[in-house]
């Protein structure tokens, strides 16, 4: 079961590490000036948020090898398939969260930055993103807690994460204790996350 916990933890960290910056990038495209990328990103976010993550996992792992025109070309191993799907899925959610956070920054902030001579890039990195960061913290906290539990989905690809081994142990020993252990692990992770985000919120509580 320890190996399972390790995989769960890996999937969680990997997803956050890549989906957060990717989500930020996506949100910029989503609110950008260029119309075609903006529309495509809107469609992407709609599909990723509008279909079950489970379906997306199946599609990437079982479906891509049979993609018409690319038969046998995109064959991913279980873990890369799961990691990729999670990153792409969560990036879509984070993109929407960040978009909302950016929209909450007052127009006057941009004007003040402009009059002070800030370039568009410096306005984004020094003025808008730091303020967005504070606004999106609660939503990002929520989303990361959901992610902890979503990792259990990869068991359907036969990946040996926490729940996978818990189920084996329960069947082997005819005893539910392993489920309780798994539950405690998930709870511990969400408790740690809640604490971490509370700390961040206090630290960025400038008003």
């Amino acid at each position, binding site marked *: 079961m320890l190996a399972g916990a390790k995989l769960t933890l890996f999937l969680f960290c990997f997803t956050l590490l890549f989906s957060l910056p990717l989500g930020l990038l996506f949100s910029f495209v989503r609110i950008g000036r260029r119309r075609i990328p903006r529309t495509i990103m809107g469609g992407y976010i709609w599909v990723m948020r509008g279909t079950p993550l489970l379906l997306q996992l199946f599609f990437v792992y079982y479906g891509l090898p049979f993609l018409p025109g690319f038969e046998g070309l995109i064959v991913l191993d279980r873990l890369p398939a799961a990691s990729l799907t999670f990153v792409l899925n969560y990036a879509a959610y984070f993109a929407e969260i960040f978009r909302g956070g950016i929209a909450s920054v*007052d127009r*006057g*902030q941009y*004007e*003040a930055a*402009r*009059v*002070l*001579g*800030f*370039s568009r890039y*410096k306005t984004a990195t*020094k*003025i808008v993103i*730091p*303020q967005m960061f*504070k606004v999106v913290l609660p939503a990002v906290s929520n989303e990361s807690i959901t992610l902890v539990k979503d990792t259990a989905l990869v068991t359907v690809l036969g990946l040996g994460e926490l729940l996978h081994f818990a189920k084996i142990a329960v069947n082997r020993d005819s005893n539910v204790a392993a489920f309780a252990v798994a539950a405690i692990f998930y709870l511990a992770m969400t408790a740690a996350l809640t604490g971490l985000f509370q700390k961040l919120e206090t630290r*960025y509580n*400038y*008003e």
Partner: protein
Amino acid sequence: MKNSEMLRVEGLQKSFGKLEVLKGVSLTVRKGDVIAVIGPSGSGKSTLLRSVVNLEKVSGGSIRVEGEYLVEDGRYATEKDQRRIAAKMSMVFQHFNLFPHMTVRDNLTCAPLIVKKEDPEQVFQRCRDLLRMVGLVEKIGSYPSQLSGGQKQRVAIARAMMMRPEILLFDEPTSSLDPELTGEVLAVMKDLAGKHMTMVVVTHEMGFAREAADEVLFMDEGIILEQGTPKEIFRTPKHERTRAFIEKVL
């Protein structure tokens, strides 16, 4: 260079869709001038100021700062020149627009350090000097949320001065303040006027216009209807509309 021309606006036109906000506005500001722009809301005062500092794009006319065209007959200078010319001016906003995630110190020093890449020691020295001028040295480590409205606006004035502008523009600097807090902001502005800072002030504070301004412009429906010394505008206005406005606000 005293009394040299700092800003010349000629025939400025600006529309928002079908609505014509500026219908050919012209004015000249000389070094050390304090110009008060008064008039009813919707008369185009703020749009005039925002166009001068390049926050709005005009549809016609010219804006010249120290002889250089920001826009000439509706044609704008290159992006790079626009930046350089607009950097000669700084602006104080109605809603302060301080950066809430930065301390007072960082609000003042961020642009000189990040944008202009000036020597930090000089920047911090200037920061302290300007905070002393607006009477807020002890708030250097505070966040904007810990300040009153009047204090915020004084910090905003100091921040604008950090850029060492040739011209300082004020867009209704006291309009979002509680009445008892306008005095401290106006005092700072009068102090600056006394130091011969070139200022264009859009304001509803007739007291300030009367006491501190060299020239008062009365704007109405997108044009400068009347301009003159405070005495002329307040005591002997030529136009009926000017008279009616002044009677209403005094």
